[in-house]
């Protein structure tokens, strides 16, 4: 058998090595890094250069590659949208139709008629990139002259806003090996045992534990991360995190545990003394915490009422965090996926700053947490990289379609422009889904479906839905054209670490594209030729690129590798890299964000050059409706009551708070169709045992969860590991509607609200619902595979 080094390829937060074992043109087995590929002995696995071992999703890739859901030919819809009836057509017919319709829609409805809903679902490499902001589709539509962009990132927009506001950058992360040096790690809503965040983050945390690090988990559920790291579990009501952090800040100040020297030197607006001259008299963070303006001191007792955590526990955690050095408060993305989620992230940054845990090894300023810089782009990257004519909050497209033209700009979060298109709501007539399953993954799916029905009502030919993916997806079912895209096993590319880790993995063409699959880049290039800008779009190619991309792709990657060699001091030439398959950088010391700022006094990238707890930009915004946010955001982090929570009057009617974390047996919706993975974990709702007992619900029963937005059916898993009043349903199940519009697969986004936080954070975890036992049918997947949980058992010991 021939073995070929390649990698996995999803937007899951990590990137690991896969080794394909080939017989002829078929992959018959996958293995992973064993330490030898960089020329070391078998089993080499050191702290500086660890193995990049693939997770369960990566290991199951062979069954996705050859799955029955694989798209092999271009398809055209023949039934109604969503009915799932398609016929096979030629590439020529599909691309001609699409090009013709694109021109018609642009010329009739203007440069904002086509919506870019590309996402990093399946194509995350340096050359073949699907990406929301600057991927191949954005460049294609921008050059075509018709693109409405989607600016808020579903996973971490609250966090992005916080990091940019506070530190001026989203490069606020430490490398994964830095976690091995902490004395205390607070996992705030963070579950690396599920998300595998970063190349080896979870493994370095095990090293930290062996070196005496203590762990704390603040989360409504007792996760596997908590059990593996033996963490102190603090259950907290969802969506109240900022309040608890405010209580911690109060207690730290109250006991003088804060690092005043650090605050004075590096922070703006933490207290009166660090307010900028122009803002004297405005409220500082400390003023807020001590209630100088609103008369409410944010004491631990005040916080305890809101978040359901005992005041003693808040105090104890505050003391642990303030007196242990170095300590990492890892404020993960998920509590930020909430109404006013950005306030949680900014509040965490305030705690990180006041304890001086920024810029030191073993501390943590994350945040978004991007760390080591990878050379990420090999495709043409120029002034056309991210051209758009309107840009909206990503979860507002359905609202935009349904209410056009009676829209205020702040309702859809229109990004300001300097030209006559500023503030003009887009008349959306078409959507491109590239590597994206957004119909299944954005909030409030029933509203999205209504929006598609509105597009239908314009009549045949008056709208266009195109889905480009390697498998059929729940979104693809609604498309007019399905274009089969070659997977990363079938095209030449280089993989980057997604989140943390410092390495590159070569991805050769392992097998020839299945069926008539083409790469995204091939499809866009050919479409660009049909629309008249082919050479501009893909300057290294001729039109023959559609038939054979080999030489052109190689040329792009060679040029990219030259950049790598120049900028990152790599000794290997391209041929050596190709032969080895992986290049792991060995860093002289663990990369820690803001080390130069703290150690050498370099300015932060904020307007003031300091860590801005009091934000210059926010404080100087005169008219919020003219910003992309649309609504006011306070200049300092504050606790703001969310529009739904267990403390809300609405909880009388809907007494459960649903959270929808990432499952580990899927990457969002990717891999939902894989029997191996479906066998390991089931799509089920977890609820607390005492809640279940009151309602006569037992493990294995079928329940329905509903609110005014939708209804889903799942089995239930009754557990002590979940906080009372909370239900947990993992996101990403492939929607499967019955005739009454009830989702039988258990996709929580039928219950979520499409109302983003002002800063753009998706409110995925701001959901009240009710629960009851049900006679309706649960269907875990389209293939009706059974999903026994026989292997999971509870025994009272």
């Amino acid at each position, binding site marked *: 058998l021939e073995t070929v080094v390649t990698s996995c390829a999803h937007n899951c937060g990590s990137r690991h090595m896969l080794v394909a074992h080939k017989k002829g043109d078929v992959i018959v087995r996958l293995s992973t890094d064993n330490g030898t590929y960089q020329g070391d002995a078998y089993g080499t696995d050191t702290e500086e250069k660890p193995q990049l071992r693939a997770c369960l999703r990566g290991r199951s890739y062979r069954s996705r590659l050859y799955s029955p859901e694989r798209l092999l030919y271009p398809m055209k819809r023949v039934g109604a949208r969503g009915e799932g009836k398609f016929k096979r057509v030629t590439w020529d017919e599909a691309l001609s139709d699409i090009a013709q319709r694109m021109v018609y829609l642009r010329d009739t409805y203007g440069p904002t008629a086509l919506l870019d809903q590309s996402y990093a679902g399946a194509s995350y490499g340096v050359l073949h990139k699907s990406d929301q902001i600057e991927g191949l589709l954005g460049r294609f539509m921008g050059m075509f002259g018709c693109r409405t962009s989607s600016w808020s990132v579903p996973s971490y927009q609250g966090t992005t806003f916080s990091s940019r506001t506070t530190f001026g950058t989203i490069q606020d992360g430490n490398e994964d090996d830095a976690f091995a040096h902490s004395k205390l790690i607070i996992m705030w809503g963070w579950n690396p045992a599920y998300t595998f965040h970063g190349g080896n983050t979870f493994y370095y945390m095990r090293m930290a534990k062996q070196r005496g690090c203590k762990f704390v988990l603040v989360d409504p559920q007792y996760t596997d991360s908590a059990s593996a790291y033996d963490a102190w579990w603090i259950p907290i009501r969802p969506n109240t995190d900022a309040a608890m952090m405010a209580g911690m800040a109060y207690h730290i100040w109250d006991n003088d545990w804060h690092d005043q020297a650090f605050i004075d030197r590096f922070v703006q607006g933490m207290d009166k003394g660090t307010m900028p001259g122009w803002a004297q008299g405005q409220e500082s963070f400390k003023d807020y915490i001590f209630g100088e303006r609103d008369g409410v001191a944010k004491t631990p007792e005040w916080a305890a009422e809101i978040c359901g955590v005992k005041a003693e526990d808040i105090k104890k955690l505050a003391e642990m965090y303030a007196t242990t050095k170095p300590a990492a408060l890892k404020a993960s993305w998920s509590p930020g996926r909430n109404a006013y989620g950005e306030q949680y992230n900014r509040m965490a940054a305030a705690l990180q700053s006041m304890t001086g845990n920024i810029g030191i090894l073993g501390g943590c300023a994350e945040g978004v947490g991007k760390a080591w810089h990878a050379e990420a782009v090999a495709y043409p990257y120029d002034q056309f990289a991210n051209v758009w004519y309107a840009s909206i909050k990503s979860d507002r497209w359905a609202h935009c379609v349904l209410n056009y033209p009676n829209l205020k700009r702040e309702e859809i979060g229109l990004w300001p422009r300097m030209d006559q298109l500023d503030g003009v709501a887009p008349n959306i007539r078409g959507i491109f889904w590239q590597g994206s399953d957004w119909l299944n993954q954005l909030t409030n799916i029933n509203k999205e479906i209504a929006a598609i029905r509105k597009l239908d009502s314009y009549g045949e030919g008056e709208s266009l839905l195109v889905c480009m993916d390697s498998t059929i997806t729940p979104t693809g079912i609604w498309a007019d054209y399905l274009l089969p895209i070659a997977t990363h096993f079938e095209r030449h590319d280089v993989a980057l670490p997604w989140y943390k880790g410092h390495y590159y993995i070569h991805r050769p063409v392992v097998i020839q594209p299945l069926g008539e699959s083409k790469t995204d880049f091939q499809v866009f290039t050919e479409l660009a030729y049909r629309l008249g800008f082919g050479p501009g779009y893909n300057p290294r190619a001729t039109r023959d690129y559609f038939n054979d991309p080999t030489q052109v792709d190689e040329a792009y990657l060679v040029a990219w590798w030259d950049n790598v060699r120049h900028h990152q001091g790599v000794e290997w030439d391209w041929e050596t890299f190709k032969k080895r398959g992986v290049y792991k950088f060995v860093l002289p010391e663990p990369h820690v964000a803001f080390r130069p700022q703290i150690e050498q006094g370099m300015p932060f990238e904020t307007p003031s050059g300091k860590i801005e707890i009091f934000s210059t930009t926010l404080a100087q915004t005169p008219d919020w409706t003219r910003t992309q946010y649309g609504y006011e955001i306070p200049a300092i982090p504050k606790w703001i009551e969310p529009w739904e929570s267990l403390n809300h009057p609405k909880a009388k009617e809907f007494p459960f708070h649903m959270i929808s974390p990432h499952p580990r047996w899927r990457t969002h919706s990717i891999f939902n169709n894989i029997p*191996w*993975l479906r066998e390991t974990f089931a799509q089920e709702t977890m609820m607390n045992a005492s809640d279940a007992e009151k309602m006569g619900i037992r493990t294995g029963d079928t329940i329905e969860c509903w609110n005014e937005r939708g209804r889903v059916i799942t089995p239930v898993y009754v557990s*002590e590991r979940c906080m009372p009043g909370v239900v947990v349903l993992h996101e990403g199940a492939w929607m499967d509607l019955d005739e009454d519009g009830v989702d039988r697969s258990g996709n929580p986004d039928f219950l979520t609200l499409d109302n983003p936080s002002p800063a753009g954070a998706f409110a995925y975890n701001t959901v009240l619902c009710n629960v009851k036992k049900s006679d309706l049918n649960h269907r875990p997947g389209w293939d009706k595979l059974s999903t026994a949980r026989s*292997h999971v058992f509870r025994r009272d010991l």
Partner: protein
Amino acid sequence: MANQVDKARIKENVARMKRETYTPVVPDMQMGFVHNNVDCIGCRACEIACKDKNGLAAGPRFRRVQYIEGGTYPEVFAFKINMSCNHCAEPACLPACPTGAIFKRKDNGVVDIDSTLCIGCRKCEAACPFGAPQFNVELNIVQKCNMCVDELEVGRDPYCVAACMMRVLDVGPIDQIADGSYDTKAVGPNETVVRQVRSMADPELTNPSIRFVPHSKGIVQDGQ
């Protein structure tokens, strides 16, 4: 339909099996597994790697990560017990096999099944106290972990061990694992291994070749 099997070979193997039931094979070196019950995140990469290597459909699982959880909110605990075949010193499956398809390898102590002799009667499945033998419906035979002998023989780790992202599952000579002299990342500093944990069948039954770093709630008396 079971395999077409050669009656003469069955006879020959049954004779061997009887011999080995009364005088078990004592391997030159007994290989075994070690698993850290606490540090395991329960991700099941090992399970999937195993299924991919062995070409299994959904259903049979040579390796099984079992979740143990207990306590009452908010004082809860959870840990994992990860088992495949324990390649026992005195395997219960071996004497249960009517065709002599099950045998123990002399060089490394791996308990293996000769698939060409298996008639799918599933008696070994019933005999094993650990649930190791897995019935493959499509092939109508019983299959199980063979510790990836093909990998062992060329000096590499089994697929499950090589897959472990947390480095909490390892393989080695069981004597050395048991006395702590084997160098393995599965066992952390200041940790020792035990022979039995709670929720696991009595090791006296078959003398399984596996050791665990136990969870505090998984420790049993006389677990050594």
